[in-house]
């Protein structure tokens, strides 16, 4: 296990949709799920332990969340419409009316905040196994939200050894967290931003949210 810098170079078009920081351990876990064809967990109880090639301390993976700077924003849209034309052609006699303004068939058109990042770059820091991380990241072709619709396309992954910045690497820098950390994590500054968040994957499991130290760019 060595100190590493991981960089994703995004395609210069399309942009990326980011709803929350992407923790490297979550990204590698998702790659393992994809590689092993593990069905999507519907709740935290269904999640299984994954062999993530990162060092751990106090149950926290030693890896940062995504670091990036947004250069420009643009507006995207996502639409969903019930296939009324197909219902007219192929619907059976049980279909009399289709309510498309409410309920399960409700059509929607949602705005999406599309980010264009400085240098089209997202960076993570970690202590881990370089070869295994490279192999897993080679399976990841997009990051962020709305990947299925072409946002967040990654054109290149770079994993390289790096010099740690000193105490706290890679989870905090000068006392400011680079990932979600328990508030009693040693070395954290008193000014470190705090919020209700989750400190380990799955990060979408809001039931486990607790007051913790979070990265500044959150």
């Amino acid at each position, binding site marked *: 296990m060595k100190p590493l810098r991981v960089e994703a170079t995004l395609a210069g078009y399309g942009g990326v949709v980011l709803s929350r920081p992407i923790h490297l351990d979550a990204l590698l876990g998702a790659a393992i799920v994809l590689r092993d064809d593990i069905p999507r967990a*519907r709740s935290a109880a*269904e999640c299984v332990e994954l062999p993530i090639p990162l060092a751990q301390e106090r149950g926290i993976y030693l890896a940062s969340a995504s670091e990036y700077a947004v250069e420009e924003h643009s507006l995207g849209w996502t639409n969903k419409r019930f296939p009324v034309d197909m219902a007219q052609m192929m619907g059976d006699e049980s279909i009399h009316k289709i309510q498309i303004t409410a309920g*399960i068939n409700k059509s929607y058109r949602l705005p999406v905040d599309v980010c264009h990042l400085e240098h089209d770059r997202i960076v993570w820091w970690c202590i881990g196994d370089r070869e295994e991380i490279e192999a897993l990241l080679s399976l990841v072709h997009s990051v962020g939200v709305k990947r299925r*619709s072409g946002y967040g396309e990654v054109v290149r992954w770079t994993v390289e050894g790096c010099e740690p910045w000193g105490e706290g690497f890679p989870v905090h820098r000068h006392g400011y967290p680079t990932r979600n950390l328990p508030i009693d994590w040693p070395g954290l500054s008193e000014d470190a931003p705090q919020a209700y968040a989750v400190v380990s994957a799955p990060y979408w499991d809001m039931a486990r949210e607790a007051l913790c130290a979070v990265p500044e760019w959150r």
Partner: protein
Amino acid sequence: MWKQLRAEVLFEAAGPIAHFEGTDGNHSMIAMTKVRRPRGGFAMVPVVSGNAMRNRMRFVSSMALLRAADMIGEKLSEPALRLLFNGGGYAGKGDEDASDEPKAKGKKKGGGAKGVSNIDAYRELCELVPSLAIFGGVAGRIIEGKLQVGQLLLVCEETKPHLPEWVTAKLATDEIEYDKARAHVEIVQNVRGDSMLNPAMRTLLLPDAQVAANARLLRADNAQAADEVTDDADKSAMLPYTFERVCRGSLFFWTCTVTVNSALEEDTFYVTLAELLKAGPVVGGKRGVDDHGQLRCIDARGVEVSREVRKADALDIESRKPGSLFVPHVQERKERIAEFLKAVEAA
């Protein structure tokens, strides 16, 4: 089996493309995306969303399933339609339900307890509707898709640095020049007519309606002559409107990437691609007139994705015999598929 495949396709607009993102009064604007310029800054370029292309892929894939199961012409329930053409819908019931069986009315087989994932139910769903495994959907449980569909990116000066080598090489060989994105966009004005302005049409009205229509026209004429504001009720229904579109003959580059875990999933992907490229997808609005939205594939590459070695070969779908696994697989199970689609609760 574990494989990642990517199709890279160069489309030509066989008709104008009118994929709108908004309106301003009577004017509809086409969807645009930001593209980074090589020396910094961004340019706006017309685009067709990945969402729209994904919808077209789901449509052809579902039609292929119905055709292989001899179900074309048969009637489907609302949840089945929603599952096949919309990916299903999530009403939040799935997580609370103790059973992970594919949800079917009056069919309560033993399921797992809450918080236990029934992998058999997942496999059964993917077996009956193979496209669910790659597109994802909701039928009792959420099935994560494995397909990432890119935007349809206009080939122009601004996007040239972002095109793969085989595309730029082909365009150089064919001596196709790049224009600025704006040069591809034209503005069209149409008018929705008002039949009541045509005396011949008015004669088709019932007598009372004819009198009312004539009186309305007279009031509108009088108001105009007196330079007064016409009442809303007396105004003509004639509506001039304008819209932007990408002109016929423009080129678009598109990619889609899939992760497959079985030979059947791979074949399902190729069946979908073959169906999509054979007829050419139709995207955007105004499809009823002027061949709007028609795309024609002019070249394609199939890539087995690996970050170390990335080799693009000619995408020869026919030599892969698309459907050689998919069609017999579906036909063997067609009674079960029909039964499943009748009973499915995709909500």
